[in-house]
C-alpha cells in the first residue's frame, strides 16, 4: 500500500506552483517598496541640496543668510564627538563583552544582566539624553561640552556594541580555545592571542555601525543642551560644540524656503560621512574575514 499516489501529486502540482509564485512575488514587492522609498528620499535630497554644495559650504560657519550658511562648525564638532565616543564606547563595550562571554559564570545574574543590556538597546535616545543631562552635565559638572555629549552618546550605543562584540566572541570556534588552554595558556593569554584576533572583524564592524548611529542622533544632543549656532571651532573636549544632525535640524525648522536647500546639502554631507564609515566596516570585514 502506497500513501503517496503519483496521479494525485501530478494533479495538484499546478496549484502548488501558483502558490509558490504568489509568495515569490509578494516578497519581491516588499523589497521593491523599501528600495523605492530609499530612492525617492535620495533623489529629493540630492536634487534639492546638490546646488548648494560647494567648498564654501564646508568651510563657512553658520549664517543668517542662507547663501553664506556653511557646515564647518558642525562637521568639525561631529568629528570631535566621534573622537570621544569611539574610544569610550569600544573600550567599555568590548570589555563588557569579554567579561560576559569569557569570565562570568552562566547563571541567573548573568542572564539578568544580559536581558537588561538587550533592553537598553531598545530605550529611546531621548531617555539617554536625560541620563546624560543628569549625570554628566549636572552631577559631574561637565556642562554642555564635547565630553558630556560624547559620554552620553557612548552610553546610547554601548548596548549595541556589547551585543555585537559578544556575538563576534561567541563565533570564535571552541576548538581554538581548547587548543590554547590545552597548552597551558592562561585565560588572559587565550583572550589576547586567540579570541580577540579572531573576533576583531566582527567587533569592528558592529562598532562602526553603532558609531554611525551615534553620528546621526539628534535627540540626546538637544536634551544635553548642545547649542546650534557656533561661530568658532572647539579646541578641546571641554569646549562646547555643535554637530551635523543639530545643524540640519535647525536649518530644516527655519521658515525661509532657502534654508531647506541648505538643510538638504547638510544631509548630503552627513550621508557621505555615514557611507564612508559603513564602507570602512565592509572593508574591515572583507579584509580580516577568516573562514574556519
Amino acid at each position, binding site marked *: 500500500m502506497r500513501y503517496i499516489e503519483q496521479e494525485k501529486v501530478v494533479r495538484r502540482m499546478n496549484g502548488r506552483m501558483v502558490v509558490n509564485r504568489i509568495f515569490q512575488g509578494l516578497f519581491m514587492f516588499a523589497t521593491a517598496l523599501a528600495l523605492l522609498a530609499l530612492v525617492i528620499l535620495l533623489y529629493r535630497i540630492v536634487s534639492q541640496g546638490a546646488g548648494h554644495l560647494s567648498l564654501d559650504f564646508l568651510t563657512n560657519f553658520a549664517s543668517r543668510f542662507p547663501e553664506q550658511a556653511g557646515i564647518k562648525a558642525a562637521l568639525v564638532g561631529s568629528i570631535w564627538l566621534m573622537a570621544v565616543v569611539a574610544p569610550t564606547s569600544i573600550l567599555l563595550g568590548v570589555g563588557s563583552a569579554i567579561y560576559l562571554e569569557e569570565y562570568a559564570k552562566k547563571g541567573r545574574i548573568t542572564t539578568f544582566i544580559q536581558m537588561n543590556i538587550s533592553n537598553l538597546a531598545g530605550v529611546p535616545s531621548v531617555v539617554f539624553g536625560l541620563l546624560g543631562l543628569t549625570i554628566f552635565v549636572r552631577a559631574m559638572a561637565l556642562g554642555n561640552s564635547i565630553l558630556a555629549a560624547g559620554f552620553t552618546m557612548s552610553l546610547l550605543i554601548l548596548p549595541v556594541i556589547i551585543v555585537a562584540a559578544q556575538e563576534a566572541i561567541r563565533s570564535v570556534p571552541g*576548538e581554538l580555545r*581548547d587548543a590554547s588552554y590545552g597548552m*597551558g*595558556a592562561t585565560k588572559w593569554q587565550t583572550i589576547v592571542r*586567540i579570541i580577540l584576533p579572531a573576533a576583531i572583524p566582527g567587533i569592528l564592524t558592529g562598532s562602526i555601525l553603532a558609531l554611525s548611529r551615534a553620528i546621526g542622533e539628534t535627540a540626546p544632543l538637544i536634551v544635553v543642551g548642545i547649542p546650534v549656532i557656533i561661530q568658532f571651532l572647539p579646541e578641546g573636549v571641554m569646549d562646547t560644540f555643535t554637530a551635523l544632525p543639530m545643524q540640519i535640524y535647525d536649518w530644516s525648522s527655519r521658515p525661509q524656503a532657502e534654508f531647506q536647500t541648505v538643510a538638504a546639502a547638510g544631509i548630503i554631507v552627513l550621508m557621505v560621512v555615514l557611507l564612508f564609515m559603513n564602507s570602512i566596516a565592509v572593508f574591515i570585514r572583507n579584509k580580516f574575514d577568516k573562514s574556519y
Partner: protein
Amino acid sequence: MNTATIKTKINTAQPTSVELAEKESVYSTRQLNLWYGNNHALKNIDLEIGENEVTAIIGPSGCGKSTYLKTLNRMVELVPSVKTSGEIHYRGRNIFESSYGVEELRTRVGMVFQKPNPFPKSIYDNIAYGPRIHGIKNKKILDEIVEKSLRGAAIWDEVKDRLNENAYGISGGQQQRICIARTLAIEPDVILMDEPTSALDPISTLKIEELVQELKEQYSIIIVTHNMQQAARISDKTAFFLNGEVIEYDRTDTIFSNPADKRTEDYISGRFG
C-alpha cells in the same frame, strides 16, 4: 543493590595495579568519580598508566572515555557543572590539589584533539604559540623549537618551505600533525590524544599511527580511539570503558586475544558498540 554487585565483579575481573605496573607509572587514578550535573559519567575509576607506553582507551560512544582523558589535564573543568571526587596522581602529586595550577599541569601534559584545530595563524606561529606563552621570546630559540617539533611530528619536510603560510591552507592530515607538533613544542611529558584520526583519511591515519609509535620512545601517550584495530595496532595497554566504568584493563595483546570479561569480548568481537 545492583550496582554493588557489578562493582564487586569488576574488582575480581580487574588485574591488580601491581601486576601491570612494570614500568614507573605516570598517572595513577584512584576512585575517580565524575558527574555532569546529575549524570554520573565516571564511576570509581582506578587506573595506573605507565611511562613511555601507549595506553589505548576504547569503548562505545558515551562510555566516558573522552571524559576520562580530559580529566587527566583537567580540561573537563571547562564544562560548567562538572563535579569530581577521588584522586588522580600525576608523577606522585594529586592534580586536584588546590595548589596545583591547571596551567602548570597542561604544560607537562599536552593534548591533541579529535578535529584538527590549528590556529588561524601561520604554521610557524602555530608551533611557536606554546613556547611564546611560556615566555620564550628569543627568535633563534623559537626557530630551533619550531624545526625540532615539526621534525618530531614527521612533517618538517612537507612544510619547511611554507612556514609563513596560514595553517588552514594545508590538508586535514597535515593539520593534525601540525597540532601534534604544536603539542611537542611545549616539551610535554605526556601526550593525550582524543580520537586523533577520526576526522582523517586512511593514509593520514597511518601516518599518525606510525608517528605515535615513534613518539612513545620519549613520551607517555594516552589515546582514546573508536577504532579497535587502531588500539590493537599501536597500544601497549588497553582499557575498556563501559557506562563510565573500567571493565577491563590489561596488556593490549591479552585484551584482544584473551579478554577476562565477557563484555570486553562482546565489544571487541563487534557484538555491540
